[in-house]
């Protein structure tokens, strides 16, 4: 209707960030605020024999010290998702204690918290806490954790298994199909553990107000309401209406700030004990040790083809690490957000995945950008690419051969996969066609052959992907094991002057909601974008909300706002009809006013709003005010898809990979702000490239993390990547009012296998078939020497 949807409107939030006026949690100072420092385990696994805090308590400025033997040691943070064993038993769920009690189970686990007047004093005193440990053997690799005799993470579970799980068709049937397939491609690899590394480290301030008996928790979270619920109802058992959770500006999340962390609950407990506010902000070193990690799957997978290259069966066995405890979403990641994507874009008739999820002596593993879906895409795209090459087929052709035919979800039904989901709408061939065109695939092979003659190693790698996002339809995720529904709330408060305040339960930490949501509202109401304010991140302002993750904000949060706007317009029409002395049916709404059809009689949105709040001349039976809240619970996930192509050059002397080009054609449904969507894709792609080439958490044989700083954990820098060439097709989502699908994770999901496929392509003629991620120069060079 209006002028904003589909336009690259500049972001409303930028000026405050560009002038240093953002309000991140660590920027907040409260009167009387104390500072916390943690005493952390130097061991991956040890008995705590004794903790002596006496010297620390005497240190300058110390307010209090707590350990696991204090009351807080009885509390723990919950897991939000339940997965059952194949035999129906409930998953094993250890309490994740606020402070370790009796035992530590990963390096960096907190054993004591020191509160002092200043941060310096807290740090100094923390060093004086003496802890006696008895070190025990540790296991950090998920496959090794399942071997007989592996050190136990929780003594009560003698095989380290948190759960096992499977999805898809009958295993025997899949195995049979593989046995009779024309060709079977098999890969064994590790989808390595990653540290999310939002550049803002996690930060919390808890403030208990004695007079009101109320808590405020300022937290760098992606979902303040969810944190409040988990904190109050599950972690501490305190009344929810007495707790306000605030999350203003957050410096990136990528999943790592979804979860309810022990420090949030612990600080909330501490502030009441000491009667003063208390702040803790992680150092980067602490972030490496305590932020939930991503990925960490050990995989064995087979894909069977017929002689035309059609996939006939897919079978995978995976060991997926959980870490020492179950983080908020952890069990869902290698299961419902992973196995359900094994159909990919292909018509594979038989699919089976077996997952074993062990505890390991590491920080918990949970959602990291893409969460389970990048791992699924990596598996599919490495297999199909390898299969094509082994059979001498073109990697692009084999994908076209296997694509699910187009369906729009309206005239044709959604596509029912072998792995529980029903896709909403899809048209897969055009994205790959477009990406191939952009990269000039036809000519590339000639260029590659020519380059090889000159001793240069060029490679091209394709990846196509689908993801399930817009998390999520409550009924579906409930059936899948979520312990809460995942709708979203959108409230539209029209002020008497016609200005509009929008309260959303989703949360922005880089995604630009203040702009995109305002575009939708301004567009639908036909008003100026300056007249719309988006408010998020405060549990006392928005009624409720589920936050932002799983590319859900626009599809679910945006749709909730649209629902409320519809209600505003419906009620506004009644008021307008009264003022214009016309019937509601005779009115039309455009450009911010109601007009009696065929006349020039009209009333503006602002005048209607004023009337609603000053109802002297008002329709009978209509309540004053113009304020609506809606809960939107989608009927299905949304299913964006796309094709990514990487072009690489491998240095024949050193094995160093240079990314020459990266091309994407994504389909995220309708687009509200192309500039922002492109930005999401750029960032996602580079994180995906990071996994392929640079990133990886490394533990030594004793469970010590040896990649725990930016000196040893490599991430992409500006000079590691080229410009990202993006394009789009549009296949609207048929089941939400905006027709949008979500774009936050797409880049990360598509990029990783494209890069690895490209490197392997460059070296295929040398006999290289696979290289372990990250593809460091040393590993690539070793592979070139036949040592991979």
């Amino acid at each position, binding site marked *: 209707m209006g002028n904003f949807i589909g336009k690259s409107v500049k972001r409303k939030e930028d000026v405050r960030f560009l002038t240093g006026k953002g309000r991140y949690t660590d920027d907040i100072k409260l009167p009387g605020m104390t500072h916390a420092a943690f005493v952390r385990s*130097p*061991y991956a696994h040890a008995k705590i024999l004794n903790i002596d805090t006496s010297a620390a308590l005497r240190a300058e400025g110390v307010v209090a010290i707590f350990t696991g033997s204090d009351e807080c040691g009885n509390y723990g943070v919950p897991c939000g998702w339940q997965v059952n064993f194949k035999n129906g038993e409930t998953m094993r769920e250890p309490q994740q204690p606020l402070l370790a009690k009796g035992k530590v189970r990963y*390096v960096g686990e907190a054993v004591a918290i020191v509160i002092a007047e200043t941060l310096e004093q807290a740090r100094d005193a923390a*060093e004086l806490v003496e802890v006696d440990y008895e*070190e025990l053997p540790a296991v950090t690799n998920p496959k090794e954790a399942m071997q007989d005799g592996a050190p136990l993470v929780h003594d009560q579970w003698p095989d380290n298994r948190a759960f096992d799980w499977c999805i898809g068709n009958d295993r025997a049937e899949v195995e049979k199909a593989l046995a009779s397939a024309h060709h079977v491609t098999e890969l064994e690899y590790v989808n390595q553990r990653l540290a999310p590394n939002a550049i803002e480290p996690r930060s919390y301030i808890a403030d208990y107000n004695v007079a009101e008996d109320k808590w405020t928790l300022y937290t760098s979270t992606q979902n303040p309401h969810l944190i409040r619920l988990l904190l109050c109802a599950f972690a501490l058992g305190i009344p929810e209406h007495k707790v306000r959770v605030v999350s203003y500006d957050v410096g990136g999340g990528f999943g790592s700030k979804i979860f309810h962390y022990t420090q949030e609950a612990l600080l909330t407990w501490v502030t009441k004990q000491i009667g003063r506010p208390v702040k803790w902000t992680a150092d980067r*070193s602490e972030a*490496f040790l305590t932020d939930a990690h991503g990925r960490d799957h050990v995989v064995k997978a087979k894909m069977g083809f017929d002689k035309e290259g059609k996939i006939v069966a897919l079978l995978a066995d995976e060991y997926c690490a959980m870490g020492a405890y179950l983080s908020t979403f952890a069990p869902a990641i290698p299961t419902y957000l992973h196995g359900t994507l094994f159909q990919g874009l292909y018509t594979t008739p038989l699919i089976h995945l077996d997952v074993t999820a062990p505890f390991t002596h590491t920080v918990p593993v949970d959602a990291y950008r893409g969460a389970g879906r990048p791992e699924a895409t990596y598996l599919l795209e490495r297999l199909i690419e390898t299969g094509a090459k082994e059979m001498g087929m073109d990697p692009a052709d084999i994908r076209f051969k296997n694509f699910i035919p187009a369906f729009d979800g309206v005239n044709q039904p959604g596509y029912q996969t072998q792995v529980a989901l029903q896709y909403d709408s899809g048209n897969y061939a055009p994205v790959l066609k477009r990406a191939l065109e952009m990269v000039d695939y036809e000519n590339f092979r000639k260029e590659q052959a020519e380059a090889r003659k000159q001793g240069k190693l060029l490679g091209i790698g394709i990846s196509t992907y689908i993801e399930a996002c817009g998390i999520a339809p409550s009924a579906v995720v409930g059936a899948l094991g979520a312990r809460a529904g995942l709708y979203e709330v959108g409230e539209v408060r029209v002020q008497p002057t016609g200005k509009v305040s929008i309260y959303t339960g989703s949360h922005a930490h880089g995604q630009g909601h203040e702009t995109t949501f305002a575009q939708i509202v301004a567009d639908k109401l036909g008003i100026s974008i300056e007249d719309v304010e988006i408010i998020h991140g405060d549990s006392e302002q928005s009624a409720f909300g589920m936050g932002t993750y799983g590319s859900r904000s626009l599809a679910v949060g945006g749709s909730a706002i649209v629902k409320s706007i519809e209600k505003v317009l419906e009620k506004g029409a009644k008021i307008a009809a009264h003022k214009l002395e016309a019937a509601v049916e005779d009115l039309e709404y455009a450009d911010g006013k109601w007009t009696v059809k065929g006349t020039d009689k009209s009333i503006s949105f602002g005048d209607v709003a004023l009337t609603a709040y000053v109802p002297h001349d008002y329709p009978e039976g209509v309540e004053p005010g113009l304020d609506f809240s809606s809960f939107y619970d989608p009927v299905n996930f949304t299913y964006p898809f796309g094709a990514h192509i990487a072009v690489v050059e491998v240095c024949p002397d050193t094995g160093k990979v240079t990314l020459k080009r990266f091309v994407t054609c994504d389909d995220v449904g309708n687009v509200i702000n192309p500039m922002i969507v492109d930005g999401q894709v750029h960032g996602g792609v580079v994180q995906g490239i990071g996994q392929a080439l640079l990133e990886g958490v490394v533990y*030594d044989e*004793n469970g*010590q*993390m*040896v990649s*725990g*700083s930016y*000196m*040893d954990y490599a991430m992409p820098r500006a000079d590691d990547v080229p410009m990202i060439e993006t394009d789009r097709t549009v296949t609207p989502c048929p089941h939400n009012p905006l027709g949008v699908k979500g774009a936050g994770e797409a880049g990360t999901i598509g990029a990783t296998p494209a890069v690895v496929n490209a490197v392997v392509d460059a070296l295929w003629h040398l006999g290289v078939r696979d290289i372990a991620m990250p593809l460091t120069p040393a590993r690539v060079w070793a592979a070139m020497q036949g040592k991979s």
Partner: protein
Amino acid sequence: MKITGEHQLAAPASEVWKKILDPRILERITPGIKTLEEKGPDHYKAISEVKLGPVKGRFEGDLFIRDKEEGKKCKVVLDQKSKLGNALAEIGMELVPVSERETLIKYSGDARISGMLARMGQRVLGGVVKTLSKQFFEALEKEL
């Protein structure tokens, strides 16, 4: 971390044996060791100060000599704690006479470090051990 290596010394095995099992000498030649205080047979309280470029830390703990075979082999166990992290090294030493006046020391063992030291120091640990063992043998040579 595995530690292995060998070093040839211009002294008979018996002399080398005597020197490296003399706590006063061991205290003097082991890089970083400040004091070795006898707590029991082949058991010492060790206080060391490691000073290596960016890292400087005081360590305290035990040093044990185990599995002694007079003049031939022994195992040194060093268990040290500090604010930077803890270190546990078990290193077997074997003296192989090369000639009457030359002895080859072969050593091999394992070192475990934890805490900040492990996280920040792992990348250089191999080099550190090399530098420290170089210093140890240079000091030992001076004693011979």
